[in-house]
């Protein structure tokens, strides 16, 4: 049984389709802590003590956000700057997060093909998540292969988006139940809807009681 916290960050929620569906699905799960960062800190006044306590109380830290300019929405950056203090998250005496897992779940407007050397985004999407990956490493955390929804703007609400949200929620609940480890991160891996759908039966079988 792993304790999971989902940090959901989306500044324009009235336009959101993909992330909102995912967030709603995550919110429905029992025993998963769900935080709407922009609702909790609309004036970016992050409560560092509270956030650090939250981190300590969970094993898997999930960041769910739309990809904005190849990065996180700004509040997530602010959160990192303030909460991941040296002496707490890294540096001298800073190993309080060691052994925890960081899972990124993001949605991108660009298609899977666009995120290739031939595509218009030129780089694989993983390249843009490098800062988060290295952040996890510095904090002695495991960086799980990120969950990605490509073509999020084109995706149909009832089909692609619904399927992705369901797969995302399925992953979270399997992890919460203490599922066998996620596939090892190769540094290139991303988990798309299809990847999650193939992975889930195995994960769920590891804990049929769930």
């Amino acid at each position: 049984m792993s304790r999971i916290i989902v940090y959901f960050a989306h500044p324009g929620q009235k336009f959101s389709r993909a992330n909102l569906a995912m967030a709603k699905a995550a919110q429905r799960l029992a025993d998963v802590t769900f935080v709407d960062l922009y609702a909790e800190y609309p004036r970016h006044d992050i409560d560092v003590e509270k956030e650090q306590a939250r981190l300590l109380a969970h094993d898997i830290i999930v960041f769910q956000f739309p990809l904005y300019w190849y990065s996180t929405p700004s509040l997530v950056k602010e959160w990192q700057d303030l909460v991941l203090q040296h002496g707490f998250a890294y540096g001298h005496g800073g190993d309080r997060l060691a052994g925890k897992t960081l899972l990124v779940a993001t949605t991108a407007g660009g298609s899977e093909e666009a995120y290739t050397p031939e595509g218009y985004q030129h780089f694989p999407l993983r390249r843009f998540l490098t800062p988060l990956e290295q952040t996890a490493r510095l904090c002695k955390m495991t960086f799980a292969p990120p969950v990605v929804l490509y073509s999020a703007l084109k995706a149909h609400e009832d089909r692609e988006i619904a399927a992705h949200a369901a797969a995302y929620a399925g992953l979270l609940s399997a992890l919460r139940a203490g599922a066998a480890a996620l596939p090892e991160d190769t540094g290139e891996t991303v988990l798309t809807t299809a990847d999650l759908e193939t992975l889930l039966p195995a994960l769920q079988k590891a804990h049929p009681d769930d």
Partner: protein
Amino acid sequence: MTDFLLLAFVFLIAGVVAVPIATRLGLGSVLGYLIAGIVISPLLAGLGVDVIAIQHFAEFGVVMMLFLVGLELEPKMLWSMRNRLLGLGGLQVVGTTALVMVIGLAFGLYWTIALAVGLVLALSSTAIVLQTLGEKGLMKTEGGQSSFSVLLFQDIAVIPMLAFIPLLAMPELMDLGGEAALHAPDAHTEASGHAGDHSGAHGAHGAEDPHGDSHGASLSLVEGLPAWAAGLVTIGAVGAVILGGIYLTRPLFRFIAMAGLRELFVAAALMFVIGIALLMTLVGLSPALGTFLAGVVLANSEYRHELESNVDPFRGLLLGLFFITVGAGIDFDLLFGQFGTIIALTLGLILLKTGVLLALTMLFGIKGQDRWLFGLGLAQAGEFGFVLLSFTVANQVIPPALADQLLLVVALSMLLTPALFILFEKGIAPRFVASQERDADDIEEAGEVIIAGHGRFGGVVNRMLRAAGHATTVLDYSAGHLDMLRSFGFKVFYGDATRPDLLHAAGIEKARLLIVAIDGKEQINALVHYVRSNFPHVKIIARAVDRQHVYDLFAMGCDEIIRETFDSSVRTGRSAFELLGMHPFDAELVSRKFAEDDRYILKEMALVHDPKIPTSENQAYIEKSRTLMAEREAQIFGKSKAFDLDTDRGWRPPSEQDVQSITRDHEAS
């Protein structure tokens, strides 16, 4: 009655004409008064005015001045000055007395006379020196503080001197010198008056009021008591002043403040000072010392600035009067009769006193320009010298002929003091510019922010500033408020912030920022206008009660204008959005947008606003407000969601078209 009016008019016109001229010429107010006195002296002689009697009355200004000095000096500060007070002050008095005595002996004076002359001349002029130091802003410098220590010691030392002098009486030496004919007639009257008054008061407490009991105040609480009882009464009186100052003044002043009458407070302040002076006189102590102590006790009180601004005008007038009488009292017949001797004696005295003072600076490590300020500033003899002289004559210690010469020397040395200060300012200080700058910094530390009005609004501002470590001075006119605030340990002072004298007492000249948090449009405007036009360097943040008021404050040149209820209204609207289900971040963006739009309207309207035309007649204003309102009504009633549209801009995702266009461009390249 006419006599009184005529006299008052002569003194006032002399001061009002001479002082501004002297100040304009950079000579300082003291010299102005002194010269005014010299100019009107023939007139006063013609009118048969008893200048000396007026001088005794005016010396009460010194008492008030020491009260004010005490108010500026917290007990802690006084305690930290103790070494300087006793060391510097004691050595100055003893050293000067001894040197003068030796010189007197060399000139063939009998030792008792030489010693008495030494005591008379050792004293300096508290009135002139403190007035000048204050005027030139030198009070807080090391030189100023040292000077003050010495003056305070001298003022206290007068008491034992008055007790001691009668022991030097040598009646057989009194008809010494043949120039008895030159004596001014009223000096004689004065002298015999003293003799009558004090012949019975030679005991341990023969010490009497140096400031005017020569005019019949022969009441005493200690006369005729055995020494121990007199001692107890004296200690009791000092204790009463200190304890009364600590425990009684606050309820008393609050009671008076409740009445809300300004003149009552003035009366109470005067009553307080005069009462203490009277008590001290009755037990044979220096009234100046008593009021000084009372001032120190009240230095921490919230009524300090109010007391200061009430007593200060009286001090100013009385000291002015005192300086005029010094000028008017100069006996020109005697001066021109023995010109060489008198001038030589005066210059000799100044040189000697300066020498002693400079020697002391080396002993006490006073350096740079402070050294010279101290040395030149205290080089004169003082008003207590006058008192001691008439007392010595009355007690047959110094022969009248010599006393008259000395009287003139004392007066002339005082007359020359402003010149010495000018010498210091123009000749010496410029060479020590660096150390002067450092001094200026010290002064700035106190009360860099003045908060006018400490209600709920000003209170929050004060707490914020204090939390960030800024020194604030708070002025408020509600006595009820103050008690509560003081119990929280805030520094708050009682008084009406719109009064220039109170602002002055609170240090507006040195303040960096004024925060206007008082109520009432008229008062706010008056305060802002006064400070903006008199102290352009002070930044002003003011609270506007309404939109119209914003325009007024803007026109007056306020640096920041805060609308009284605007921010809290916007926050209320934001909370309403949230409780109605809007996402908190959207609620934040919308309310920001609203506030921005409102400020835009305000600015647009300010452009067409004209303070000279009433709003109801300002056509452009009405027109503009109609268009702006129409635009916004469309938003409100037509649901055009203008704010939403603007906040949407940031987070609206690109459309399919955008993605296609990116892809096309990519394929083309």
